């Protein structure tokens, strides 16, 4: 990890939404006091199940969401409340996004070339034949050979993996320094996922790209992420070096997640767990995981546990872990 000024620096980010319910509209906080840094060329893997706020957080980095409070610095500039379209454009020149659904993230009526050409022209100033060459080159960089041929295709003529490659090429067309990859492989076939992950990895090295890699899959997070951050109910549960978090999870939720992952400590016996979603409504108290936690104590329901370092660069937010002197793992966690 670099010691210089991190490329992304988020402090106490809070994002609120208004939702309609049976009883009128209420505020929820899908992201609630999240702080993290990502350095240039580093991959931070953000792990959580649906409703944990990981996508909301990801979109905030490209400012598709505006934080309600806290601060967000990107590339050394505070972009927390940037609204001017020129400033937003500047931000998005540095930070790009790859979406989850390769079928939804490409416009079905535009050819691949039509997706890339305007971007390359706008951000890199190429025109004419040079533009065509650059587009083809981009496509070849992401593994679509020959690029000229891929450029004339329409999205529906491509497989999911190929589309995701185009989506990556589109992000690259802007020459970004950072990419938010929101579950980029979760909708792809298993046999293709590895190649996309490897492509992202290769681009990281080739262009010194930093990533926020959003996923619900611990294994791919460990594989691709340098560091790992586990989110639950909009709050950070645990964060640290990827191998450390997966290898020796401290937080009961991380442990649960790990144990539930099929093929790794999965047995045919076990307790059926409370699967209720976390409460996101404003005004909640305590630890969002308390209602499911096997180690729950009275304090957990009232006081939000602070994120506390348990090891170098390894932090956990849990009264049971940091408050109590002894931590007793309750769920089998050792990988086979």
């Amino acid at each position, binding site marked *: 990890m670099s010691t210089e000024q991190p490329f992304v620096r988020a402090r106490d980010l809070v994002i609120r939404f208004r939702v309609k319910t049976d009883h009128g509209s209420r505020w929820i906080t899908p992201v609630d006091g999240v702080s993290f840094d990502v350095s240039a060329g580093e991959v931070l893997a953000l792990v959580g199940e649906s409703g944990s706020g990981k996508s909301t957080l990801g979109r905030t980095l490209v400012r598709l969401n505006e934080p309600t409070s806290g601060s967000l610095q990107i590339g050394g500039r505070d972009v927390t409340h940037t609204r001017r379209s020129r400033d937003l454009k500047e931000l998005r020149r540095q930070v790009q996004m790859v979406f989850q659904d390769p079928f939804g993230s490409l416009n079905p009526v535009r050819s691949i070339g039509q997706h890339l050409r305007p971007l390359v022209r706008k951000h890199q100033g190429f025109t004419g034949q040079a533009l065509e060459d650059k587009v083809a080159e981009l496509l070849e960089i992401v593994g679509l050979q020959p690029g000229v041929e891929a450029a004339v295709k329409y999205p529906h003529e491509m497989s999911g993996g190929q589309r995701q490659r185009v989506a990556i090429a589109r992000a690259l067309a802007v020459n970004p320094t950072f990419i938010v990859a929101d579950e980029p492989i979760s909708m792809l076939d298993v046999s293709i996922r590895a190649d996309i992950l490897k492509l992202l990895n290769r681009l990281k090295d080739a262009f010194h790209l930093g990533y926020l890699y959003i996923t619900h899959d611990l*294994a791919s997070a460990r*594989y*691709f992420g340098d560091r790992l951050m586990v989110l639950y109910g909009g709050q950070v549960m645990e964060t640290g070096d990827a191998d450390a978090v997966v290898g020796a999870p401290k937080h009961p939720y991380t442990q649960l997640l790990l144990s539930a992952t099929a093929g790794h400590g999965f047995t045919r016996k076990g307790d059926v767990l409370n699967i209720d979603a976390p409460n996101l409504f404003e005004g909640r108290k305590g630890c969002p995981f308390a209602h499911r936690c096997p180690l729950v104590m009275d304090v957990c329901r009232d006081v939000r546990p602070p994120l506390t370092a348990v090891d170098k660069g390894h932090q956990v937010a849990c009264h049971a872990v940091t408050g109590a002197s002894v931590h007793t793992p309750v769920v089998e966690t050792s990988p086979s």
Partner: protein
Amino acid sequence: MARRPVVEVEHLSVGYMTPRGLATAVDDVSFTIYENEIVGVVGESGCGKSTLANAVMRLLGPGAYVTGGRIRVDGQDVYRMQPEALRQFRWTTMSMVFQSAMNVLNPVKTVASHFEDTFLAHVPNMSKREIADRAAELLRLVRIDPSRLRSYPHELSGGMRQRVVIAIAIALSPRFVIMDEPTTALDVVVQRSILESIMELQGQIGFSVLFISHDINLVTAISNRVGVMYAGRLVELSEAAFDASGGFHHPYTQGLLRAIPKLAVGEDEIEGIPGSPPSPFDMPSGCSFHPRCPYRKPECSMRKPPLVVAENYQVECHLTPAERRGELHVH
């Protein structure tokens, strides 16, 4: 132990009629599921696994046709039943948990009325009271509070909906349940708890399961035997071996396993299978996997592979076991 077959699928082929002609989705698939057995089928999207499930249920959508073979469930040929007989056969003998738990419940009906409809369709003289009691009992079985009977589907979380569907599926104590990706859209933790429920129920009540999924780890964990489908064919059917990497025999299956990132620290090598599955209109000659196979031999592209049956597995492959493990062939 003399096992009684519950489901016998023989040389089943299913095709979809498209403007470009008939596309074969399931190609000459045969297997048997025995009493109380869970058979898992894995494969990537478009490999024909859902078509297989629907074909067994005789629920193929418009434009899809069984073009060969036969299916017997509990000894009865599903495709030779009259509509009324089929109607009564369904759910009493075989039921199905659909892929999209989100969408299989009628949005305008309560959970209770789903149970009501199901019971009344098969036990017309059942009283409302009995139905309510039985439904509550079933919900308790899948660990849902019976007060949820009054809820509408949209008021339930995805996990709960899937449990409700499972409860409905076992309502009439069928001998055989098809589960078509029952946990795909769910979070891992929820996924696990549902799988546990399924296994628990299966242990308690006793029924056979055809479990379809794209997640080979999951299938391996839950099934007695695991089938692997590729391009419409059942290329492998093996005893589930927990030690995953060693337990499978087809190069495709092995490729799938290699493509999955591992949790264990230190196992950092992952590798995708090159290329993509063939289009049904552009099937490679011989073994349909040969263009993507790292161990392919010349004959792979020339002849259909034979079915190799071993003690605890069967596989369709030209390669010898050693070749399949890549021991003789370095790519």
